[in-house]
């Protein structure tokens, strides 16, 4: 992988019609559109890694443990978790931020891990489904999912639970309809929605009571 992803906007034009040239150009366009956050991002990155070209070491703090992987800068956080750290609880359903199966927490906020690069998440607190339980004690929402049968095949479940935990914390699970809306970034093709709602609302109720 070339290192043009973080280049300043340039007038590079594709010369040979190859995918690589397109990526260079796209990198330029993205750079233009998102210049301020990307510059800030790049500055943060340099604190951990002097170079972002080719296979590089990067450190990810996942579920409280810092782990080093060797990966290209284009590796998404999702693929870093699944393919490099073998934390396969986080699922890939679409790779385009359309389904929510890959939802994790980064610094306490829910994000879709397919739409962020691993290298951009160095120095952040990443929590995955594997880090939600305290030892053998399940998180209340994990318990509630089992109790309410809030899944069938289980493939969207990790994302639903990570979203649900955040949804409660955000205060977006105070009514049924509000909770439905704020849980709608996570698709469940088996159709466990009423049960997911019941589980999230139950935990929201418990936490409201303290």
């Amino acid at each position: 992988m070339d290192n043009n992803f973080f280049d300043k906007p340039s007038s590079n034009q594709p010369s040979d019609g190859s995918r690589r040239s397109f990526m260079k150009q796209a990198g330029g366009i993205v750079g233009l559109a998102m210049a301020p956050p990307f510059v800030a991002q790049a500055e943060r990155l340099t604190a951990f890694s002097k170079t972002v070209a080719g296979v590089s070491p990067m450190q990810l703090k996942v579920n409280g443990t810092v782990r080093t992987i060797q990966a290209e800068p284009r590796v998404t956080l999702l693929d870093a978790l699944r393919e490099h750290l073998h934390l396969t609880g986080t699922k890939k359903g679409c790779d385009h931020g359309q389904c929510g199966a890959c939802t994790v927490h980064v610094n306490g906020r829910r994000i879709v891990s397919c739409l962020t690069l691993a290298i951009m998440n160095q120095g952040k607190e990443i929590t995955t489904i594997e880090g939600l339980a305290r030892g053998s004690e399940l998180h209340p929402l994990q318990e509630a999912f089992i109790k309410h049968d809030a899944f069938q095949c289980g493939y969207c479940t990790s994302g639903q639970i990570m979203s649900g935990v955040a949804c409660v914390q955000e205060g977006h699970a105070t009514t049924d309809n509000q909770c439905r809306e704020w849980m709608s970034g996570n698709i469940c093709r088996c159709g466990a929605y009423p049960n997911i709602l019941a589980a999230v609302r139950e935990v929201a109720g418990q936490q409201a009571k303290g």
Partner: protein
Amino acid sequence: MTDFSAFEPSKGGVVGQPVNRVDGHAKVTGQAQYAAEYALPNLTYAALKTSSIAKGRIKSIDPAAALREPGVLAVFTHENLPKMAQTPNTLAGKYAIYGMHMAFMPLTGNEIFYSAQPVAVVVADTFERATQAAALVQVTYEQARPVASYQSANAEVFDPNGQGYVFDLKKVVRGNPQASLAASAVQVKATYVHPINHHNPMEPGATIAHWEAPDRVTVYDSTQAVAMSQSSLATILGLPQEQVRVVTKFIGGGFGCKFNLWPHTVLATLAAKAVGRPVKLVLTRQQMFTSLGHREDQEQTITLGATKEGKLTTLIHEKTSTTSPWDIFAEPNGAILNWLYACPNYQSSHRVARANVMTSTYMRAPGESPGSVAIECGLDELAAKLNLDPLEIRLRNYANLDPGTGQPWSSKGLKECYARGAELFGWGKRNLQPGVTRDGRLLVGWGMATASYPVRPAQGRARVRLYADGHALVQTSATDLGTGTYTVITQVAADALGLPMANVRFELGDSTLPTAPASGSSVAAATVSSSVYLAIQDVWQRLTALAVRDSQSPLFKALPADVVREQDQLVLRTNPSKREKFSALLQRQGLADIEGVGNSKSGEGYEADQIAFDNKPGTKQTKRSMYSFGVHFCEVKVDPDLGTVHVTRWVSVMDGGRILNTKTARSQIIGGSIMGIGAALMEGTNRDEQYARYTNADLAGYHVPINADIPDMQVEFIDGHDPYVNAMGVKGIGEVAMVGTVAAVANAVYHATGKRVRSFPIVPSKVLGSDAV
């Protein structure tokens, strides 16, 4: 031990109870391992390059640029793909590889038949490198004008005349439909149009192929059918079946698209052999639209003839749909019309047109689901014409015998379903007049529809090992798509062994285990539970044989026929004080464990087996028609200005025979109903007419229901079991869950608005538009 015939629930037993899923903990902690999640050493990654045209020929294909990329191990095209012992491209090959649905294997030639057809497989050391290199494979094409669908101007629609694959698509005629229609007092004719639907399970198709020796391979695959995949792969690879192992411990949904073996699994397996390392191939969501089939685009015309009282005299069904260049496949929509209502005259026929599309396949209740739209919306239209209540017209046409065969039903609790559903929903308060009920400015509509699905014949085997320490291992090659197989089978085994569920481990999803049928057509719970039950009866028979020969046993010299089981003990029926725990017997015998096997039949064939087994003189088999039944009630609210439709209430009451677990069963009914709400209101894959290429092939463009679309849903089951279907009395519920759901929504929209939208999905533009009547 007395002869067994059928399962009897035990006092305090767990069968039928709403127990939590035994695999729940694994699923909520991320520990459940799906096909792509085996971390094998030296794992490599494959990516597909797919065609940018729908019809034509590859003029040139150049892997050079891809091969120059770092980490790339190989690029396979039709010019260098390792040879297969058999392909489905010929008729003989297709029948030899019976588990492969599509009679075409990509990369076997330079011809392009459909858009996004695989043309190259790239293998690299990382996912990113494989993906990028696939984009660098240079392909030039000679393009021809494709056919997009049966609706296209250049499509040739024809009568398959019984030549259909899987479903023969023969014209079926009962009675004299033309004459009875002409003589009928009332007639309704309506055409319903359906777009392509895609299953879109959350887990994409995924394969890891690992050659453990040059002639032995393990394939971790996301499949509903490990045994069928195994035999099909063995034929393709030219290997003995036992040298191909297929493993699917968890599967992230299927809904029919993972029933068969599809080309990507074969390509990954061939690539792995060639590169000498394990290969992982996970389809992208976009590729999911062109890799595992779909529900075909179709239109169906129903003609109903009836008396003034609303008694059906005639049902005529005609379907036209799109099929692929090689296969003649269509869901048999007309079948359900033959048994659902008492009607003396019936006709069903199919027409198809070949287009440049892959072969369509089974999607939840194939045939019955869209077919129920024709009959259930058609009957609703008839009821409206006669000013009759939709439930009343169904009761007037209630079939006490199977109208298609004249046979009695094995069981039919549909009347009870109607009554209970109507009560739960408050159906009696429905205003007969459409388009007048309001909640504020929103229009309110109530619709309902009947559900039914056959108990398909199937058989399977199971093995049960009972250990002297009071634990048991239960094994079959079944899969659990999320339907609850892990859980319900553990419940059955626990009750039949007299052990707590925690002492029973149920292992599935591995072709080395006793062969179970594919999870599909609602046969899994019925067949697997019955085979496990019978395997456990075999265990008790063997224990009895040990006990009556053991001079130390209280049952020594007892007649085996006098020995019965109570919980985990063998008991002498004539003197119940004589009893022994199996663990004591095994320990005294010096046996660590004892094994039983069971082979179960479900559906047609079960009763014949039972009679042969009972061997009672004069017993004659009565042929019975075996179906699950149910009813769905739906309330919608429609915004008259925006045309948006929101489902606001839902009630389903089902008769699925014995329900093994009311909690997981309820989830299945909810899930099928939600898939129906999707098909009714939002789902459809669109194709560009000129290029025959999908224009919305992802989850942003193909809308499936989300949480905000779904109201609270009420589900109940008619309590019962069916003694004629299998040893457990289970009829199955996974497929019937979806039947009727699309119609229930469409009928509710009509009741809300007074407009019939006959083209699915019912999107706002159609609700507001003038094409509805």
